[in-house]
């Protein structure tokens, strides 16, 4: 997805002279060709994330469309107050592009795991929050939102799903409507595991690539069913509750640090977010409904 981010911004920077890239010493080599082509619009500013957000706000205040990019927890959880004050409160737009979703950097340990930022950022007034599931979705969402003058978060992952979902900002996709009393709701790259787990099960499946604004209309359509949120992050289940009087349960993260290393697949398996674990959770929920 990072390569797609580069390709998309390369194209946008070529067409739109207001595009400015601000890197926090990540993806520097990836962006070197762009920097050579547009030396005044691509900056590797260093490892100083809070200031990067403020600088982006200043660029936006003067009419540019900044993209700020570095590793997820440093760009989002570390910078929440800068995003709140300098972007949201001041109403300055910027594109915040993180890399390293949830357990992408499993081997680096809990300091590099990041699964809370979707939930945190959606609390900020004026903020848009997206979780593209693969590179096509990323391309669509960036092109749709990058110059709208609002702060928008894009969460990159190294492990996108391989499904072809025609996403649109702010709209959910109904991938399966089996008339079931159980609806699975999920978001982002984990869709691959979810689809593998439930494709032959009698459940409905709804997919979100935008966490804020959440597609309330689609949620309303399944309000009469039990909802099971399957997500390797926080944020989706909270957003779904914007629609009142739902019956929602959650299969996802435990309330403890995931202190293992290995790969994202190892950790997903450990916490039941591999296809087998998800299938078991869905079957258990189905058994209580029948």
């Amino acid at each position, binding site marked *: 997805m990072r390569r797609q981010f580069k390709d998309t911004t390369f194209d946008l920077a070529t067409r739109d002279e207001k595009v*400015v890239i601000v890197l926090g010493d990540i993806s520097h080599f990836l962006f070197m060709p762009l920097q050579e082509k547009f030396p*005044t*619009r691509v*900056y590797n*500013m*260093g490892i*100083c994330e*809070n*200031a990067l*957000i*403020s*600088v*982006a*706000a*200043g*660029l*936006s*205040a*003067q*009419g*540019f469309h*900044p993209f700020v990019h570095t590793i997820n927890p440093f760009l989002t959880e570390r910078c929440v*107050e*800068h995003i709140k*004050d*300098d972007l949201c*409160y*001041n*109403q*300055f737009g910027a594109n915040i592009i993180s890399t390293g979703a949830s357990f992408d950097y499993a081997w680096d340990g809990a300091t590099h795991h990041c699964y809370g930022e979707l939930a945190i950022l959606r609390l900020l007034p004026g903020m848009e929050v997206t979780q593209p599931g693969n590179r096509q979705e990323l391309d669509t969402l960036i092109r749709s939102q990058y110059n709208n003058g609002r702060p928008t978060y894009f969460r990159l992952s190294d492990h996108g799903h391989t499904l072809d979902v025609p996403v649109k900002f702010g709209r959910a996709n109904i991938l399966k409507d089996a008339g079931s009393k159980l609806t699975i709701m999920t978001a982002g790259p984990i869709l691959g595991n979810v689809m593998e787990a439930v494709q032959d099960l009698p459940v409905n499946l709804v997919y979100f690539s935008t966490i804020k604004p959440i597609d309330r209309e689609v949620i309303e359509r399944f309000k009469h069913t039990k909802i099971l949120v399957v997500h390797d992050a926080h944020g989706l289940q909270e957003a779904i509750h914007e629609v009142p009087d739902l019956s929602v349960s959650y299969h996802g993260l435990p309330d403890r640090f995931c202190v293992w290393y290995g790969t994202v697949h190892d950790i997903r398996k450990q916490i039941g977010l591999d296809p087998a674990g998800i299938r078991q959770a869905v079957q258990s929920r189905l058994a209580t409904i029948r």
Partner: protein
Amino acid sequence: MAAMTPFCREIRRNILTASRTSGHGHIPTSFSVIEMICAAYDTLRHDPKNPQWPERDIFILSKGHAALGLYAVLAQYGYLPVEELKTFGAFQSRLGCHPDRLKVPGVEVSTGSLGHGIGVAAGMALAFKIAGSPRRVVTLIGDGEANEGSVWESIMIAANLKLNNLTVMLDFNRSQVRSLQIPNPAERFQAFGCDTMDVDGHDLEALKAALIRPAETVKAIVARTIKGQGCPTLAHNVFEWHRKSPKPEELEHLMKELEVA
């Protein structure tokens, strides 16, 4: 120490009156920065009749808690009615105890939390460089604010990019002696790559000369100031007066002190 100008004395009078009427304080920190803000508005290109003039230079009060000082200066330059200062901090007022850019003409960035305005200022200065614009940015930070890491992150970025259209003014009123005082901020700014000057922060002409002096990179002006400048009662009792609003008899006393300053 330079003599206080009638213009700056009038601004301080208005601050005292506004604080008395509104019941809100932050007088000493506001008194500390009056000459600095006036020097900025005297040297920047701006138009009070057209606050959104596209070619204007930018002033950002990064230490947002001196908002009353900023409002009083803006009122004196014609951005808002002096009478409106009396609404400071009231429920329906435009004038909060920290400035809101969406409410107050002349306020470019909403500040309050420390260590933010300076980074936004660096971003604006970079934007002007990219656009090939001659516009300039001046930001005013506090010495307490200079405890924040984001201040030095922003300065490193500005120095690395040689943003010579950005000036950082430090209100060096030594308010941080109680905790984490930077003893010689000029050395610190110099070490971080700034073109640094050390001036009397209540000498309007010296401040203006420092502001208009060309530089090759980001400029830092360490302005030696006195918290509560103009009223010995405030200057000698800064902790008591940090957020205090004067009672009628105290207002009368402070006004008398101000007349002989």
